[in-house]
């Protein structure tokens, strides 16, 4: 066994940079935070991964146009302007769902997911109505997770929709 004096270690002190501000965590806190490390493996996580990519914002604008909102003049106006009626948002959601089911590529499937969840968010934000057949708590968690990686102004749409559900 050989040894090298050049890598001779010294234990970092408690005020070493990397440990700055983080005290030893108690078992209760550790348990709470450990759970946040679990992968949930939901379909929406594919959308979250896609939006997290460096080209996520550009991809979203393009994907909504050729995906579930194809043929609409401005997907942004429909989702963010507040003028779209509930029936239109339900149709976008259903189109998104159909695309997810029939998709032949990952990108297509993820575009379908975007249409589905963004339409759900817009319905909550502008009409205060949950149009998804899921538990409100589950939808709020999903919308917040997507919001954390979504570009503005979609991030505000998603987070406001999530908070509307949480406070309902």
């Amino acid at each position, binding site marked *: *066994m*050989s*040894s*090298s*004096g*050049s*890598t*001779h*270690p*010294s*234990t*970092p002190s408690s005020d*070493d940079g*990397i*440990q*700055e*501000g*983080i*005290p*030893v*965590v*108690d*078992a209760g*806190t*550790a*348990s*709470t*935070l*450990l*759970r*946040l*490390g*679990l*992968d949930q493996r939901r379909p929406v996580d594919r959308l979250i991964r896609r939006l997290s990519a460096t080209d996520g914002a550009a991809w979203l604008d393009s994907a909504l146009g050729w995906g579930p909102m194809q043929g609409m003049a401005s997907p942004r106006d429909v989702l963010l302007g507040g003028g779209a009626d509930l029936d239109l948002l339900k149709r976008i959601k259903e189109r998104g769902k159909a695309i997810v089911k029939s998709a032949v590529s990952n990108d297509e499937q993820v575009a379908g997911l975007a249409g589905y969840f963004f339409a759900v968010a817009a319905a909550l934000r502008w009409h205060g109505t949950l149009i998804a057949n899921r538990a409100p708590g589950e939808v709020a968690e999903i919308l*917040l*997770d997507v*919001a*954390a*990686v979504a570009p503005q102004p979609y*991030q*505000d749409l*998603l*987070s*406001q929709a*999530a*908070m509307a559900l*949480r*406070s309902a």
Partner: protein
Amino acid sequence: MSTDVFPSTLNTWIDDERRRGLSGQLAVNHYVMSAYAWPLRVYYLGTNMRWLGEPDEIIDGFFASRLAHDDFYEKWRGSGKRLRHWLINALHFYLREQLQKSRRDRTVAAPGAEAGDVTFSGDPDRETDRIAAQAFVREAMNLAAQTCRDKNLGDHWSLFLRHHVDGRDFNELAREFSVDAARAAVMSRTAQRHFHLALREIIARDGVPDDQIDAEIQLLLERIS
């Protein structure tokens, strides 16, 4: 032993750093000491050898003795063990060496260690896992906090801590951080995402393949409960 027998997804950070040469080796050693010093100290205090010296001195001596060896990490990789268990195993050998040294230097018998075996009060594996769970969370917090600082997300990180550690709700935090509740929620969630990735990275560095990280977290949750 060749490292080729291990999946390429295993310990990529440690391998990548070590391939960078001396500075990478130092970074790996710094990380291992930062992450594992506290668990090793706590473990040492639970052994029959705790009279050998002050915990900080013993653990500093242990790291100095073992991490400077060029093949330390290769031997760990060859063992197939989690790094935390490998380090505890290595600590046992180190404590035995210290006992022999103590016997040479002193003429008095060591209390409770006549046979020279290191024993631990309790189940050593369970206790190692329990302490490591807390240490991993702390290291993940360090890593995520650094990432948030680098990305100018300092307030996001503070919000995350206030919500998940201090238990404050978003309406309260909205007032504290002068944002609306929706903004507070998404800021916290952004930092949470960095913490999620950091925790999985820290657990991977312990020698856990990507596809076993969820199972490892479940094990640690069970140990810590």
